[in-house]
């Protein structure tokens, strides 16, 4: 469209309407294309990560095959590698952490969303929980070594002495071990579980709350019979994502778990996890060992990826059905 003159062609009052310049249009096209490229890049990046880590691990996969996952030896000198203890340690420590962090996380979510406290106190408590998540894991590791382990040793000794016949307490705590590692791990996943559970509880429509209280239910009857079941999908997703975080957490475990290749139920014996194995062996690994470690990395990647996708899907699905109610 050409610039047109209005009837009143006085100085300063002619139309200043102009179509966008060629440059403007060009910039617009280019920029929009660029943003599209970056959206694609996100997908390609994920694929590249998988391809790269998987690709480096392929020689080791061919060599060791499935026995890598079921063997318990780790002896670079003799070229024997197996990560069954690490897989077990990863799952065991994460489950323990999920137990602790899950109960506390959900309890705190209930505490913060169900008007137990004046608003200001709730805000402060929320900030404290969020700061808990902000502390670097290596600092938790340090704290675990010098504060937590000495602190729980008397308790562990007592449990071993009196309940030693239970497989969980069959060894004494000599320093690093599963129990302190799992304890720190539960502190670390607590904020994740608490935050997502809070979202799920806060998303309960007001009319459901009114209905529950209107029926004459006490606060806890409403929470246990109505609110928690209503938010159960989101809380379950929170637990799955917390579990995923625990599976991949590295430093606290590398510093606290004891790095011992054994299959054990005992909470007080040292153990190992996949992430800690990578952290401890990678820096000094030979070329050959690196490829073996890449295989272990693939196993960790697959496990955490599946758990995370599951958690993400659960949360998305429950939010969708929650929204349509």
């Amino acid at each position, binding site marked *: 469209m050409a610039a047109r003159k209005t009837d009143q062609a006085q100085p300063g009052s002619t139309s200043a309407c102009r179509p966008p310049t060629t440059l403007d249009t060009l910039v617009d096209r280019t920029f929009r294309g660029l943003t599209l490229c970056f959206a694609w890049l996100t997908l390609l990046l994920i694929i590249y990560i998988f391809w790269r880590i998987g690709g480096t691990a392929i020689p080791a996969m061919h060599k060791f095959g499935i026995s890598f996952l079921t063997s318990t030896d780790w002896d670079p000198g003799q070229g024997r590698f197996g990560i069954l203890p690490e897989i077990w340690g990863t799952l065991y420590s994460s489950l323990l952490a999920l137990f602790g962090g899950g109960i506390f996380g959900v*309890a705190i979510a209930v505490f913060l969303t169900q008007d137990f406290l004046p608003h200001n106190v709730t805000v402060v*408590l929320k900030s404290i929980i969020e700061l808990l998540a902000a*502390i670097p894991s290596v*600092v938790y590791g340090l704290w675990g070594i010098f504060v937590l382990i000495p602190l729980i040793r008397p308790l562990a000794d007592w449990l071993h002495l009196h309940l030693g016949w239970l497989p969980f307490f069959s060894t004494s705590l000599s320093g690093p071990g599963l129990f302190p590692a799992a304890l720190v791990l539960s502190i670390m996943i607590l904020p994740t579980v608490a935050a997502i559970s809070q979202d799920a509880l806060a998303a309960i429509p007001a009319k459901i709350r009114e209905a529950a209280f209107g029926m004459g239910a006490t606060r806890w009857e409403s929470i246990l019979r109505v609110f928690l079941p209503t938010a159960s999908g989101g809380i379950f997703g929170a637990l799955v994502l917390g579990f995923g975080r625990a599976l991949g957490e590295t430093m606290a475990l590398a*510093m606290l778990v004891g790095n011992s290749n054994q299959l054990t139920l005992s909470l007080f014996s040292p153990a190992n996890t996949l992430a800690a194995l990578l952290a401890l062996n990678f820096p000094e690994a030979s070329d050959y060992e690196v490829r073996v*470690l890449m295989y272990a990395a693939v196993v960790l990647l697959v496990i955490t990826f599946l758990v995370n996708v599951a958690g993400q899907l659960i949360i998305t699905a429950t939010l969708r059905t929650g929204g349509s109610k």
Partner: protein
Amino acid sequence: MSASPDFSRNFTDPRALKSFILSTITVGCAILACIPLFSVLAMLILRGGRRFSLELFTSLPPTAFDSGGGFGNAIVGTVVMVGIASLIAVPFGIIGAIYLAEFGPHTRIATVARFCAKTMTGIPSILAGVFAYSVVVMVTGTYSAVAGGIALSLLMLPTVMLTAEEAIQMVPAIMREAAVGMGCTPTQAMWKVVLPKAMPGIITGVMLAIARAAGETAPLLFTALFSDYWMFQGGAGDLMEPTASLAVLIYNFSGMPFENQIQLAWAASLVLVLMVFTLNILSRLIGQRKK
């Protein structure tokens, strides 16, 4: 004729008792959960604060039986590597977020990319290190600040992208309409109106991502490794040399049998936590100002 119901509170009623017990347990859980935070902070102040002096920032890490020393090079290394990571992750994340939030929010690729970003938030940080190791260290043949920065950028990217997307979506539709109604191209509307309005939210996300990256250890262990020397003694080429970081220093020193090193580990933790908390609190203030 029935008696009128008794409305007064009765604490011996089993229902009230059950409520009371459950409430007590919940309060207990909340208090217990706060203890680690206060314990960590107390230890940092007590043990780290004792060593706090200017020397920490100006000296190099001590060797085994030395006394004194500091971790100035580790602070520089952390800042440099987080800087490299931000240079990669911030533009990538924001430009990607613009597509997800504005130019193609309902396209299939946007759905997929969003899902990828959410999944990436859950990828263990050590695997970011493994990836950077195979892409950079194995190719260049050396541990380096660049490798460490790339590993950290993978951890920052999803946070930046997802918070930026949310911030852009929060810009009221009437702002967007006003810009488009004036005859802005979509790009002009984005740069002149939407992005300025979304900026506090975007900065909040970036700062949270930086805070997280600064504290990460696992991805640096075998990408940047560690160094006992100052960076940039040999010019910018030092970016391709092994590089110290606060987090790795804490990890290394925590396992040493020397009191001096352990004290330094606590002091380094204090510095690191101060950095991380400052970023967190700043981002929170910026986030609040936008409301």
